[in-house]
């Protein structure tokens, strides 16, 4: 059964960043046992902020000290607890890389690291861009990496993570992204890609809030008789390689779209998969080129580097 997306709706904004806090708060109120670690960037007004207020005994602020937070999260998990630990975008992979690798993945603890403000969504220039994280995470064994497409899916991931063994990363963008899914009535499974739009001419594989822009590009292409499928690759690791090969072979043309460097992220993972599978069709990566980003708002940066619907449309037109 096809999933119900927002393809035919007016844009419905929601926030995955708000959703994770909302789901944690709900789970705490339901009596689920877990603790929450955070750094100095959870506003009191957010749902996560409300949880800290309502459940202060299980929430631990580590200030501006990401490696300590991630290490301590591992310690809390070793004491027998399920741990959610939030860190601001780039400072999770770039500052705490050794702790993610050694304390979390190698020690094999039940910590869910939530990186907010992913990609270029934080704004503020390259110091605040989180465009190298997927490349790092992909090379660390024993790490599951999920990127919610929208707020509803973020809640599904948070919920699913309670019964999921082993370490996890949940990569969330800043705020205010359009919903990809019209409702929650779809099956979500960590590691299983979702075909949000079926297509015959080209397959777009994307992750996170970029999926909405892919759907809008697909819509524009449909007006010209081009059938572009969109695959929600919400789990970067373990990667659903069967889905990649299946949908790539269906159309013979593949484009990847991600708010990450084109080196080493989703595009790289798909390229490796297709190359090893003997895929002979056309292939193109869309994402941040190998430069420090120009300065501007996230939407303007997306447009500048061809990562928005117009850019995706243009790339596919040139490709076919």
């Amino acid at each position, binding site marked *: 059964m096809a999933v119900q997306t927002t393809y035919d709706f007016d844009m419905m904004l929601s926030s995955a960043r708000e959703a994770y806090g909302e789901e944690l708060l709900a789970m705490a109120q339901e009596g689920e046992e877990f*603790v929450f*670690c955070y750094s100095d960037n959870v506003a009191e007004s957010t749902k996560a902020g409300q949880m800290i207020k309502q459940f202060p*005994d*299980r929430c*631990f602020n*580590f*200030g501006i*000290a990401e*490696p*300590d937070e*991630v*290490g*301590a*999260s*591992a*310690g*809390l*998990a*070793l*004491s*027998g*607890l399920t741990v959610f630990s939030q860190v601001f975008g780039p400072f999770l992979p770039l500052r705490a890389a*050794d*702790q993610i690798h*050694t*304390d979390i993945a*190698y*020690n*094999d603890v039940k910590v869910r690291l939530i990186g907010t403000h992913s990609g270029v969504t934080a704004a503020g220039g390259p110091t605040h861009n989180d465009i190298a994280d997927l490349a790092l995470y992909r090379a660390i064994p024993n790490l599951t990496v999920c990127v919610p497409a929208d707020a509803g899916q973020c809640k599904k991931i948070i919920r699913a993570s309670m019964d999921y063994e082993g370490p996890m990363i949940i990569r969330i963008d800043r705020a205010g992204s359009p919903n990809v899914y019209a409702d929650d009535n779809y099956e979500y499974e960590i590691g299983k890609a979702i075909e949000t739009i079926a297509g015959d001419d080209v397959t777009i594989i994307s992750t996170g809030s970029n999926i909405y822009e892919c759907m809008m590009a697909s819509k524009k292409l449909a007006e010209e008789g081009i059938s572009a499928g969109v695959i929600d690759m919400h789990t970067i690791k373990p990667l659903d390689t069967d889905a990649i090969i299946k949908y790539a072979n269906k159309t013979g043309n593949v484009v990847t779209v991600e708010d990450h460097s084109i080196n080493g992220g989703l595009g790289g993972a798909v390229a490796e998969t297709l190359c090893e599978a003997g895929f002979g069709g056309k292939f193109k990566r869309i994402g941040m080129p190998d430069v420090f980003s120009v300065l501007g708002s996230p939407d303007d940066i997306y447009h500048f580097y061809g990562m928005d619907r117009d850019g995706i449309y243009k790339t596919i037109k040139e490709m076919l």
Partner: protein
Amino acid sequence: MATIDMNRVKELDDKCLKIRKDLLNFIYRIGMGHLGGELSIVEMAVALYYEYMNWDPKDVKNPDRDRFLLSKGHCSETLYTIFQDMGNYTMDYMVEHFETLDTAKFGMHSNRKYVPEIEISAGSLGHGLPIAVGYALGARYQKKNYRVIVMVGDGEFQEGTNWEALMAGGHYQLNNLVCILDKNKVQMTGHTRDVMNIDPVKDKVEAFGWNVIEVEDGNDVKQCLEALNKIPERDYAKRSKPTFIINNTVKGKGVDFMEDNYKWHGGGIAKEQLDEALADVEKNRMVR
């Protein structure tokens, strides 16, 4: 404060000598190790495992056990040697399963999945203290009275994460947390004071909100026990300063040609060196 039983101290002196000899033989047989630091921590490790800690080698996953986290994971062979002395392994088994690829159980750096007596997989420096802070917070949250004891090296103490964790330990007033600094004063390429001085470490750690206990001779098991006996009572509900023990030790302790010599930070040991080292530790043993 518990009184120190001198007969027990003498037994532990004998134990330290045996652990030193077993360790030297182990390192000789496996051909690699970090003898300098592994010899410096013997007395404190013996004081912890054989006397102070609530820790049963036959029940190493007991939820109420005290946790000992070796942050200087390159000195794990001292712990393996203690576990074999306690009867959990034979020396032959450890040698036969040391870094033997997919049949390995023991490695130069500790792995908690392979060796269940080990609490944390460690090797990269500056990780133990942050993990211990989280562990102690978790114990308090779960209303558990076990202690979390982490041992760090003085060279390792140059890593910035230690100072982040000192801040957090003081901030959260983790009275169930104990950090032992194995201050053997030597790191891989020289004396710590020359490579990057950490002193005055007592003043610095006190300024972070910790209670500091200094052990004049950390290679005297009696002094180690006296320091451990000064740790506050077990009470998860109480918030007070965490404890920091500066354990002044000698790198390569007991072996004349290794003592205070950075060249014995890591490596193996030849047969003739082994014989000399075994004679040295016997000659240099604690006499009371």
